[in-house]
C-alpha cells in the first residue's frame, strides 16, 4: 500500500499536465484515461491533493466552472512539473526492472 502512495501522487501530477482540474474532475480523468482499469477512491485522492498542495507541487484556487459553479481548481506548479519528470523517470526504470525479473526470457529475445 505504501508504494501506491507515490504512484497516486504521480498519477495526479501527470493528469494535471493536461490542464487544471477540480477534485471530482481529477478522479474522473484518471478513471477515464486508464479505461476504467484504475478506480481511485475519492477517500484516497482527496488527502493526496492536500498532501501535494502542502509540498508545493500543486496550487489550488477557487474558480467558477463552465456550469457556473464555484469549484476549487488545482494546477501544476513548476516544482510539481520537475517532480513529475523525476518520478516518471524513476517509474520507467522501476517498470523495466520489474519486467526483466518477471519475464527474463523476453528480454533475451529482444536483444
Amino acid at each position: 500500500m505504501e508504494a501506491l502512495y507515490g504512484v497516486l501522487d504521480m498519477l495526479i501530477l501527470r493528469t494535471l499536465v493536461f490542464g487544471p482540474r477540480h477534485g471530482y474532475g481529477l478522479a474522473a480523468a484518471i478513471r477515464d484515461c486508464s479505461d476504467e482499469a484504475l478506480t481511485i477512491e475519492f477517500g484516497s485522492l482527496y488527502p493526496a491533493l492536500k498532501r501535494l498542495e502542502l509540498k508545493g507541487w500543486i496550487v489550488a484556487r477557487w474558480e467558477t466552472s463552465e456550469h457556473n459553479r464555484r469549484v476549487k481548481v488545482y494546477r501544476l506548479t513548476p516544482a510539481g512539473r520537475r517532480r513529475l519528470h523525476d518520478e516518471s523517470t524513476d517509474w520507467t526504470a522501476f517498470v523495466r526492472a520489474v519486467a526483466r525479473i518477471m519475464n527474463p526470457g523476453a528480454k533475451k529475445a529482444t536483444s
Partner: protein
Amino acid sequence: MFWRRLPYLLPWRRRAAERDMQEELRSLAEMAAPGELGNLSLAAEDAREEWGWTRLEQLAQDVRYAARGLRKSPAFAAAAVLSLAIGIGATTALFTLLNTLLWKLLPVRDPHTLLMLGQRSPTTLTAGFTYQQYELFSSHAPTLDLAAYAPVRLNVSIAGSVEPTLEGQLVTGEFFPLLGVQAAMGRLLGPEDDRVPLGHPVVVLSHAYWRRRFDADPGVVGRQLALSGTPFTIVGVAPRDFFGVDVGSAPDLFAPVMMQPAVMPTTVNLLDRPNVFSTWVRIVGRVQPGASLAEAAARLDALAGNPETDWRPRDKFTGRPADVHLEMRSAATGLSDLRRRFSQPLWLLLAVSGVVLLVACANVANLLLARAAARQPEFALRLALGASRGRLMRQVIVESLLLSALGGAAGVALAFWATRALVVYASSGHQAIVLDLSPDLRVLALAAAVSALAGLTFGSVPALRAARVRLAQTWRRDAGTASSAGRGPGRVLVAAQVALSLVLLIAAGVFTRSLQNLSPADPAVDSGRILIVSVEPRGSGNRSGPGVAEHFDRLYRNLLDAVERIPGVESVSLARTAPLSGWTLGYPVSPAGGTAARMVSSTIVYPKFFSTMDIPVLKGRDFTEDDLRPAATPAVIVNEAFVREFLAGREPLGTAHGVRQARGAPPARKGDPPRFEPGNPLNIVGVVKDSRFPTLRERTSPLVFQTFLQANTGFAQMVLHVRTTARSAEVVPAVRAAVQAVDPIVPMAAVHTLSDEVDAALVRERLVAALSGVFAAVAVTLVCVGVYGLMAFSVTRRRGEIGIRMALGATRSDVRWMIARQTMATVIAGLAVGVPAAWISGRLLSSQLAGLLFHLTPTDPAIMGAAALLLAVVGTCAGLLPAHRAARVDPATTLRSE
C-alpha cells in the same frame, strides 16, 4: 515541506482551512452522484492528518483533560506540586549558585580571550603580584596587553563628613580599556589617568554606589569627595552589571593606581618601593590580535632566566629565587575566592538536593499510583469504549508532566528566593557577597530538564499500571483479594523513600555534629559580647624608625584608656592579629641543651588580653605595665602546648628551664639555609591555657606572647579586643568612634563581634550543616506523608477483609497490630537498604568530605544508628493513624456492603 505546515499551528488558520475544505467537499458532492465519493468525513479526517498537527491537538486535549483532573482534586495536586517544587527548587537554587560561581562569563568585551596571570609554586597558585612585577611584565611583553587592579579599603568623606568605610579598587590606566567596559555616565579611567604618582585625583563610582549614596543624581560627575583626606573628582559611573574581575566582591569606587599612597595611608608607598615585597595587585591581560598566546607566554617565562629581569621573590636568608613560574589562565569567568571555598560544598549540596528530589518523585509516584488505582474503573470503561492503551498511558504521562511543569515553575520561583537567602547566609557577619544571580538560559534549561525527567520518572510507574488495567477484574466488585497486587510498587516506593531519607538524615547528622565539634565553646563568643576591630593608624605599615614604635605604643595606650572608660566595656586589650586570622610572627627557640633552633608562632599582646579573651592564666601572671617598657627584662608568656613540647616537666616560670630565644647567625657559606644560635634565656612570666584560636580546626601549636615594644617586627598594626558586659550593640558606636579618633582619615575596619568572625570562618560548614538539615527534614516529612498515604490507601482497600477478620474474632488490637506490622515491614525494608547504601556512599566520599568534617568520619556509627532509629520511629508513627482507623472498622457495616 515543514514550513508550509507551520501556519496550521495557529488555531484560526486551522479553522479557516477547515471551512475551506468543507466548502470544497460540499461543492464536489453536488457534482457527483450520491454515494459516488464514498465516506466524505473520513476523507476530510485523512486530509486533516496531512496538515500534521492532529497529534498536537490530541496532546492539547490531554493537557486540558489533565488540568481539569487536577482541578478536581486540589489536595492531591497541591501535595504533588509542593513536593516537586521543593525538590526542583532546591536543585535549581544550588545549580544557580554553582552556575554563577563557575560558569557565568564576566560582563566584559570578549570574556573568552581575557587572561589572568598567576604565580605557580609547586604547592600553590596565587594571583598577587607587586606593582614592580606588573611594570616589568608590561614592558617586556610587546604582544600582550596587561592591566592591574588591587582591592582596597577606602576612607571616604563627602562634604567634610566621614562615610562608612567602602571597598574599592585601584586600577591601572589600561584596566577599563582592556576589559572593554563603557561608562554608564561621564567617563571611566584611561591611560591618561595613570602617568604621575599622586597626579590623578579622579575617581569612578560603581553603579550601585551611585544609586545608593547619590540617589542616581545625573549631576554627580564633577563633584568632589575625599579619600583618606585627599580630594578626588568624580569623573564617571561604571555600568550597572560591572563589579570588576573578582566575582563576589562589589567595589564601590575605582581610583587610579597612581593614587595608591594617598588612598592607602596606612601602608608604605608601594609604587616606588621595590624592596617591599607586597603582592597587592592582580594582573589581567589579553593577547594582541594576531599574536600567539604560546609565544607571549614563552617570552614572559624567559624573563626569570635573565638576572636583569628575574621577577621571582627571593628567600630572605639565602637570596635564592623562589621556585615559582608564571601561569596564564583564562579569566572568562573572573577570579573568585568564593569558587575555591564554595564549589565543593555546593556540589555536595547539589547531590543532596538531587536525593531530596528523588524522594519527592517517589512521593508523587505514590500519590499517582493511588490515584490511578482509584481511577481504574474509569480507565476500564474507556478501554471498553475503544480507547487504546497507548492513549491511556499517554494521558497518565501528560498528567505527570503537567504536575512536574507546575512543580518546576514553582521550584524556579522558590529557587529565585532561596539563592538570595543562601547568599545572605553565606555573607553573614562579614563583607557582603554580591553575585549576579539572575537565572540565565543554563539554569532555566536545567530546571526544565529536571522537571521533565522527574515527570517521566514518577509518571512511568502509574502509566505502566494504567496500561495493564484488566477489564474483568476491575469490574468485579472485590475489596480484598486484588489489593495485594496493587500494593507492590507503592511499598517499594515508600521503602526507597525511607532508604534515601536515611542517607540524608545521616548526612545532616554528620555535618551538624562536625560543626559542633568545630565551634568554640565560650558562651561569651556565642552571645556576641566580644568585639574585634583592626586599628591601622597612618604609617603603621612600618615601625622601624627611631621613636616610631614608641609613638604607636603611646597611641595604643591612649586608645586602651579611652575604650576602657566606655560604659559597658568589661575589659579591653590589643593583639597583633585578629582571633581567626592566624599568627603572623615567627619566634626562633633553642630547646634546652639542644642547638637546633625551632620556629614557633608568636603574637604581640597588651595586658588584659587573656581576661578579655577568657583564656585562663594557669601559672604565673599576665603582662603588667612594667613589661611594656622596652628597657625591662624581656618577658614572654607561653601556652600549654609550648610547655608540653619544650619544657618536659621542668618549672616553666623564670629562666631556669634552659630554653633560650634563638638568634639569627650568618650562614657558614653563602647560599646555605639560615642558621640560629642560642641567645638570651627565655624569661617566662606566665603560662596560659591552649585556645582554639586562630585555627578552629587544628590542634593548638606552641605559642609565645610578647609585648609591643619588646617584639622584633616591622609592622605596627594591631587589633582591638573588647569584652562587653551586656549586649554589644550600644557599645559598638562608641568603640568605633574611639578607634577612628586614633587617626580620622584612615579607612577604618568594621567592628565585628567574635561570633561574626567565627560564623564567617565556619560559613562553609554552617551552610552545609544547615542545608543538609533542612533537606533531611523535608525528606523525613515526605516519608511520613508517603507512609501515611500508603497505609491509609491499604486500609481503605482492605476494609472488607478487615471486617471479615473481625467478624471471625480478631480483636481491635489484633487489627491495629496487623497494620502496624505492615508499616514496620516497609520501613525496615527501607532501612535495610539505606544503612548499607549510606555506609558505602560514606566510604566512597570520605576523602572528598574530609575537608568538611572535623573529628568525625562520614560513617560515624552513633549517628547512623540514631538516624535509623529516628526514621523507624517516625515512619512507624506515620502509620499509626491508618492502623487506628482500621481498628475502628465496624464488621457489621462492612459485611453488609459486601
